[in-house]
């Protein structure tokens, strides 16, 4: 939240909210509301309490709470509960400790330091991964910007402030101009959004964030301008590589694509952007030295292991492919070396593929690799759970080869 005109806080220090939450301090306030740090007396833990000002519609907070409750992902702040105190609706959130990305950018800038390309790609991969999950839940964040990204301990990157979140299908809601001008896509200013394309606003915001992260400055000064002028500035924005020669041209091109004035010219999903970012991570020219494309195939059927290996090699002949039929062995293998791509059968004899995914995510081992489940009988519930874990699902069958080849090619452009 940004600074706002001085108004009396909704809650006061020491106040006991709903007989449970003892207000400790005001963490931040903005035009719409406030966030407090509080102590949950029942569970003896620190939490964040979010409220909207009395003159703001309660819908914002309701929508945010419900959106957060629908998503379980390390990149999204956890909502504990929602309540009401003195007629004020409040949301109880996980208290995420860390440094916001806008402060990190400011601090680096003030020290005359630049963010490394590999570090930036890692951060963008985390955000694109989170947005993939948010969008798959049918939601658009609509306020992706550095101030809404928290860098927490353990390399966790958390997308905050879902106050403007809306379902993709809410056309009326998306016509309302909302967000932060510098990170706002041209179509958001006019409110002329095509149904089902609200997620492309987030991809634009991520593009501007990426630009600022690497260039240290915004791509252009939004100022007070008409939507037409904003669109024109977006079109004429200089390529990132003009500011930094060490940014690989595919990364510069991807960021420019994300910031395209026309929504149809942007990557059409956060997942597509994620694949491209992951593919860039291991490329020569980034700080991380190039290494062979590593794939781990986990399936208890030797015939499937052979087929999957063949399909991977069809798209990446130089790939290093390790195979195993055992889930526990797979976890040991990932511990030794995290592959770029993990192809995982769900129906394994010892621990099933979903358990393997949960263990890997829980141990933060699989964060840097793309996990694709390959199954002959995944249920809808399986697929939804896997989506929440950031895992893509493919079906065993005649289309498997083409789908897998496309994935590998996107990760590993030849």
């Amino acid at each position, binding site marked *: 939240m940004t600074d706002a005109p001085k108004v009396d806080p909704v809650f006061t220090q020491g106040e006991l909210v709903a007989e449970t939450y003892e207000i400790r301090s005001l963490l931040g306030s903005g035009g719409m509301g406030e966030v407090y740090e509080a102590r949950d007396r029942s569970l003896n833990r620190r939490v964040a309490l979010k409220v909207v000002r009395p003159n703001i519609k309660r819908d914002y907070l309701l929508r945010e709470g419900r959106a957060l409750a629908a998503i379980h992902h390390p990149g999204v702040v956890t909502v504990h509960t929602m309540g009401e105190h003195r007629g004020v609706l409040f949301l109880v959130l996980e208290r995420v400790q860390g440094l916001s990305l806008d402060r990190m950018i400011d601090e680096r800038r003030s020290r005359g330091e630049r963010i490394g390309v590999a570090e930036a790609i890692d951060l963008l991969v985390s955000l694109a991964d989170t947005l993939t999950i948010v969008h798959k839940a049918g939601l658009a964040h609509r306020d992706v910007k550095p101030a809404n990204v928290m860098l927490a301990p353990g390399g966790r990157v958390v997308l905050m402030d879902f106050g403007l979140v809306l379902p993709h299908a809410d056309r009326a809601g998306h016509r309302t101009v909302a967000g932060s001008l510098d990170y706002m896509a041209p179509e958001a200013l006019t409110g002329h959004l095509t149904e089902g394309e609200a997620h492309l606003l987030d991809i634009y915001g991520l593009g501007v964030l990426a630009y600022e992260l690497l260039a240290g400055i915004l791509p252009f000064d939004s100022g007070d301008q008409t939507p037409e002028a904003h669109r024109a500035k977006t079109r004429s924005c200089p390529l990132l590589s003009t500011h930094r020669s060490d940014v690989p041209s595919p990364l510069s091109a991807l960021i420019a694509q994300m910031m395209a004035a026309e929504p149809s010219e942007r990557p059409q999903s956060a997942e597509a952007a994620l694949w491209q970012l992951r593919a860039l991570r291991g490329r020569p020219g980034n700080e991380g030295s190039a290494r062979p494309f590593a794939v781990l195939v986990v399936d*208890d*059927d030797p*015939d*499937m292991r*052979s*087929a999957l290996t*063949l399909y991977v090699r*069809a798209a990446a*002949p130089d790939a290093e492919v390790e195979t195993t039929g055992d889930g526990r062995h797979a976890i040991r293998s990932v511990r030794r070396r995290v592959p770029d791509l993990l192809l995982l*059968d769900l*129906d394994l*004899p010892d621990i099933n593929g979903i358990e393997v995914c949960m263990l890997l995510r829980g141990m933060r081992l699989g964060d840097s690799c793309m996990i694709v489940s390959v*199954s*002959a*009988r995944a249920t809808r519930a399986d697929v939804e759970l896997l989506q929440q874990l950031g895992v893509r699902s493919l079906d*065993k*069958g*005649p289309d*498997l*080869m083409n789908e897998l080849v496309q994935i590998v090619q996107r990760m590993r452009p030849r």
Partner: protein
Amino acid sequence: MTEARDELQTLLAAARAEFAARLEDKVRELQELSDRGAWMEARRAAHKLRGSAGTYGFAKISAAAAVMEDVLIEAEPSPDEDARNRFAAALATARVASVTATREGA
């Protein structure tokens, strides 16, 4: 580029033919498992055949294996007579399809 594509097509065709050559054995294994009432193993074997046959392009066998697997899952822990009959019918379909696939050299 064309050479690499040709090589890949050759490899894919060889893998499919090699798989087809073992299809009858896989169906025979399912028969043996059901004959001795090893239903858990039969379910796993049917599951594997469902996925691999579908992936290698043997849709009929994959569909028959899917029926076998689903029947055994529904009837867990041990299939009754009706379930055994449905399993046997699907197995017979898979057997015919596997013979055809092997004869035609995939």
